[in-house]
């Protein structure tokens, strides 16, 4: 009963033994990434993981207020940024995503109290890892918004798209 359903444990499980019911599971997210990135219908193509409480809600707010933003972002809804498995972020890059954005709540507003903080830690480690393998860590970002901040989330999507476009297509780091 103390479980609040954030999914932080699922993201930490190395063998995929944990499944959080009611939300997209590991296999589903992998399948979604494969389907999306095998098509690559736009450039730069950005995968956005958004928490349902703030990030996704803010994107809905942007919709409700008809705030324009670039068309190249594909949003995946997750319960909490802490539930985003590092494996999926790496998978997205491996399959050719030009950028991955994670949008959650502000640290102090997290619905699961410290979920966003946990996500920050994971992103820090992930950025180190990306550097190690030669991928520009700037291709990964995390930020927070409030559910009512449609304008801000649209601005984040716009600025991140511009930034990623400047970095060039995924893999251009490897060309000499």
């Amino acid at each position, binding site marked *: *009963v*103390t*479980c*609040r*359903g*954030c*999914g*932080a*444990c*699922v*993201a*930490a*499980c*190395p*063998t*995929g*033994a*944990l*499944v*959080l*019911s*009611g939300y*997209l*599971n590991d*296999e*589903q*997210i992998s*399948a*979604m990434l*494969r*389907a*999306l990135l095998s*098509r690559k*219908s*736009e450039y730069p193509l950005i995968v956005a993981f958004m928490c349902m*409480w703030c990030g996704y*809600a803010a994107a*809905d707010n*942007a*919709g*409700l207020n*008809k*705030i*324009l*933003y670039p*068309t190249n972002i*594909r*949003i*995946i809804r997750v319960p909490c940024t*802490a539930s985003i498995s590092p494996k999926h972020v790496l998978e997205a890059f491996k399959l050719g995503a030009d950028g991955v954005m994670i949008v959650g709540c502000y640290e102090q*507003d997290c619905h*699961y*109290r*410290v*979920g966003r903080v*946990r996500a920050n830690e994971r992103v820090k480690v992930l950025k180190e890892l990306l550097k190690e393998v030669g991928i520009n860590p700037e291709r990964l970002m995390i930020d927070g918004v*409030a*559910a*009512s*901040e449609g304008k801000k989330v649209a601005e984040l999507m716009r600025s991140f798209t511009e930034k990623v476009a400047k970095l060039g297509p995924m893999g251009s780091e490897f060309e000499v």
Partner: protein
Amino acid sequence: MSQCDESGHKEQRKVLLFVCRCGTNIAGVVDVERVVKYFSRREGVVVRDQDHCCSDEGIRRIREAIREEGACRLIIACCTPSLHGELFRRVAEESGLNKGFVEIVNIREQCSWVHYHDPERATNKAIDLIEMALAAAPYASPAKVVKVPVERSVLIIGGGVAGVTAALSLAEMGFKVYLVEREGFIGGHMAKWDKVYPTLDCSICVLGPQVSKAYNHPNIEVLTLSEVKSVKGFPGNYEVEVLKRARYVDEKLCNGCNKCLEVCPIQLPNEYNYGIGFRSAVVKPYPEAVPQAPYIDLRHCIGCYCCVGVCDPKAINFKEEDRVLKLKVGAIIVAVGFKPFDPKILEEYGYGKIPDVITSAEYERFLSSSGPTRGRVVRVSDGSVPKRIAFIQCVGSRSDRIGRRYCSRACCNNAIKQAIQTKLMMPGVDITIFYVDVRATGKLAEEAYRRAMDLGVNFVKARVGELRRTKSGKVKVFYENILTCEFVEEEFDLVVLSVGMEPPEGLRDLASMLGVPLSEDGFLSEYHLKLNPADTFIKGVYLAGACSGPKDITESVTQAGLAASRVAELLKRGEIELEVHAPTIDRSKCKLCLNCVRACLFGALKAGKGVV
């Protein structure tokens, strides 16, 4: 339950795809025909388009299609899942498909509404998003639902008119109500008001009996001087910690003789009257206050025990201590209201420096028979009767400069009311209302506006630039008359700033404790502005009154009734169905690394015991 054999090949599970046009909301931008055509040749996918999936006809067609096609998965490309996700999941469940097998693809908020500048790409994005859902569909896991018993009791935070109304309504329906109020008495802002618009009805005469009824109701426990410290649990079963500060006066023993108020030698500025006049360290701001027992302000008490000496029923007890109460409730209504805007930050109005510049809330205390002047309007500087009074509207509202873009809704009507009331009391007085727009909306409000004009109240369309105190002690108003385009200087004896409403102190903390998001204006955000104004994004937590945005009494009471009925819907059956959002463990895959136990943010996972 499910009509599908889940043991078979995942790829063979038939998917039913509905693409919603949403009138022109989606179809006006996204080329629905192209989307439908694109997926129509896909093996194992049945695709349909529909004008409004959420309409009665749409739902019927979804239901029929699930049965006829024997679909194992349902994908609906429509609006955001937070709008109709639950509806479609329920429809699926009723048609024999587990609701975990329903996926909503958001092609309205994420495509047509934000990419209307580029229909081609919006359509491509819609196809991408549906492709993703189709790829994920075979791997969906069924939703698990549990039935849990609920507590038939409710916590209401805030004892203003909204909280009291909701409390009475629920108590009459047979629910146990805990009404938590931060101040020493219930009644809120309305109790401070002398008359209410549009009819100039006596505020305390209509509110008093309600408040008294609530306080004495067998199903309502009123906790004054109390604050919610923590909330744990889930819909139907919350554990709440409430800090109840010591009153030092026994509410049951006190007979309301008020002798203690008279003997207390302490004199302090009276906060209840916004610092005008005095109060003692034994506090009871007005005679009709509920509860009738005063409380003792220990910070300013000198321990003379005069009050103890005069108290016949021996109700005063200095040994009383603060207590933490643990309550079990099934639902929570937030009714914490608003705070009047503090105009000190608007330096040009000189509030706090020029004594005869006061707020509309302070002015109301002057009008009140229980106020500092017993109902007489006087100048704060010298106690004389003002001959010319100015009201300045939109102070702390409709201003980008100070970050308050919203209209506070009640101030126009209130200024008109205060002007009429003053005119009736002092016919010779000259009153000018400086307005930006007169927003006298609501039943009988236009009539009140005209009555004010008939009584000779001047309405001047102007933004006031500055207020200055003259040598003779009057207040000079500098304004631009927007209709005549003239800059004017005019002297008044008293200037009333019609202040707007702000989110109350501590709302942000309360919001994060409850997990309810705030809107851009800093008030709590409702589930849906139009159709679910009393719901929040958290099932089990509801809203009443001005805490979700400026409201007048009528609107607060209306919303309080809705909040009460929403709570009753949730709790009446004694048990509710909740979807399980907890992880399950596949023991064959688990290597006992215990990463999950360390990752858990709440200590819900325990090694050895399995999960939850």
